């Protein structure tokens, strides 16, 4: 399937090429072309704003899936140090999950991420970032290690969802995800989760029960992928655009709901247009959150985490039909 964001970018390539050409020419030309360059650049900015300035939820889904968007490893590799640890100690190492020890702003941490491929070959190896039970068991193992050594857990969420395959069901995908939720709700260390791309269903939540949840401006996070939701509700995956609009899956919606704590802004056109700046900003936000959380006594940290999730939901106070107790 073609990504409409990539399609839109194609339309800009010609303009970018002309600006670059003029710049090159300008260097060895006696005539100053700067005004022409400036005019073209201004036009380019205007078009960018027109095309990317106000993304619909469905366009944000595609921005979140953009092939050049920074992935979990792009962030983790920007740590001062990272030593990857592998495997679930039972069956297999799942390449859709990366994790290990790292140093972030001088602090030892356990970093864990859902890793999609940056090209077709890597995508096949990493199963398009859809983890299997072995991946989630690696997550749980590393989270447990972090809790034991009292180092913070830093996660990067980027998945359409957990792998829906025969082997994943045979190896109890449900149990693997449930045990991640269990571990994360109990770990007596700060947990900071960042949704860097697409956060899809329980497969994303398995890495996202956290004291501080960050989302990139154009990331999405939803109960199911728009395609999955449309298939479930209307038996028609082609209604994904409608589902995307109804699910309230944007960072802005979720911050309003109190489900997400912080939004990290992206440059116009998306994170891939200024990777270094975005990565630095995200790591800065994570470090600030970890510093704040690390100062809290573990009992209070856990109590606040419990209360945070305890109050999430929306219900009416209905009439009791009866007092429910009958002698």
């Amino acid at each position: 399937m073609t990504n409409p964001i990539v399609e839109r970018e194609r339309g800009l390539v010609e303009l970018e090429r002309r600006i670059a050409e003029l710049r090159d020419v300008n260097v060895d030309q006696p005539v100053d072309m700067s005004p022409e360059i400036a005019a073209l650049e201004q036009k380019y900015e205007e078009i960018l704003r027109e095309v990317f300035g106000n993304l619909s939820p469905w366009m944000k889904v595609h921005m979140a899936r953009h092939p050049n968007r920074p992935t979990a490893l792009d962030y983790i590799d920007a740590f001062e140090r990272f030593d990857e640890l592998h495997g679930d100690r039972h069956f297999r190492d799942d390449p859709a999950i990366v994790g290990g020890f790292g140093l972030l702003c001088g602090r030892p941490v356990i970093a864990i991420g859902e890793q999609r491929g940056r090209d077709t070959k890597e995508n096949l190896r990493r199963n398009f970032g859809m983890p299997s039970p072995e991946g989630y068991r690696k997550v749980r193992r590393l989270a447990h290690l972090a809790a034991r050594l009292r180092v913070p857990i830093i996660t990067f969420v980027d998945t359409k969802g957990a792998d829906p395959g025969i082997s994943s069901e045979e190896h109890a995908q449900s149990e693997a995800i449930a045990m991640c939720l269990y571990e994360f709700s109990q770990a007596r260390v700060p947990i900071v989760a960042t949704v860097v791309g697409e956060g899809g269903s329980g497969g994303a939540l398995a890495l996202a029960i956290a004291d501080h949840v960050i989302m990139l401006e154009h990331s999405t996070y939803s109960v199911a992928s728009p395609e999955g939701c449309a298939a479930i509700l209307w038996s028609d995956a082609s209604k994904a655009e409608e589902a995307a609009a109804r699910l309230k899956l944007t960072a802005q919606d979720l911050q309003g709901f109190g489900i997400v704590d912080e939004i990290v802004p992206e440059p116009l056109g998306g994170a891939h247009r200024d990777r270094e700046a975005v990565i630095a900003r995200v790591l800065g936000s994570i470090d600030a959150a970890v510093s704040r959380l690390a100062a809290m006594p573990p009992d209070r940290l856990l109590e606040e985490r419990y209360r945070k999730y305890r109050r999430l939901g929306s219900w009416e106070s209905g009439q009791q039909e009866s007092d429910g107790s009958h002698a």
Partner: protein
Amino acid sequence: MPMPEWLRIRRGKHADQRDAALWSKCPVCGEVLYRRDLAANLFVCTKCGHHFRMSAYDRISMLIDGDFTEIGTEVATGDPLGWVDKKTYPVKIAADREKSGINEGVVCGVGSIDGFDVALAVMDFHFRGGTMGTVVGERITMLLEEARKRKLPCVIFTASGGARMEEGMFALMQMAKTTAAVARFMNDGNFFVTVLTDPTTGGVSASFAFESDVIVAEPKAMIGFAGRRVIEQTIRQKLPDEFQTAEFLLEKGAIDMVVTRAELKPTLVRLLEYAAGGRRAS
């Protein structure tokens, strides 16, 4: 099975109407069964042994000795996203209430099973496919908190198509909420049993259903994370019939036991007895 007074009140006119249907056809063997015979046989086909899906209150009356004190009845469905497709979400909910005779996808409360006090939750597939939205998550959390406070064992019967789409991320967050409550409950040394009934999938399967001390399942119950249709579409081939059945999961080591409905109550009583350190004088 005589219907206790509390159950008659709770079930109201809806269940009476449903019970008025004289017969049901077994979806497996096609046998036409008199509703009364079916109920007397714990909703198991007298010919082929197929386990019909049960309503929450039928389950509760099958297990609970006498009184059952409900928890969370004051929590009613909201509409956090203002969801509209062919109908609005509140209209869908009203229709499900009418059809199922219950007001949400789970009934929770405290009662005793053969003398053992328990906190019991029973999900009901007849209400929006047993999907978990805020009310289901909230009631189960309230039950676990009450059980923890009173040091009661907790038994949860699951039946769910997964998270409720119409509540979006609020539905997904119920996995986190219930899990945190399970963890606190279990950390205090309390006993937790889940009984997986047909079907148990998605967000319920990937949270409290698989977090218990003992996982029991009913025969042929469909249990899994991803739905069968989704997997078939992904791998582009038909799955074998036994895939994701309770028996399949038992063989793969994912659950503890597959128990027929006739054996279910005695099995639960034995488990409760082990966890209680033997039979208590009652």
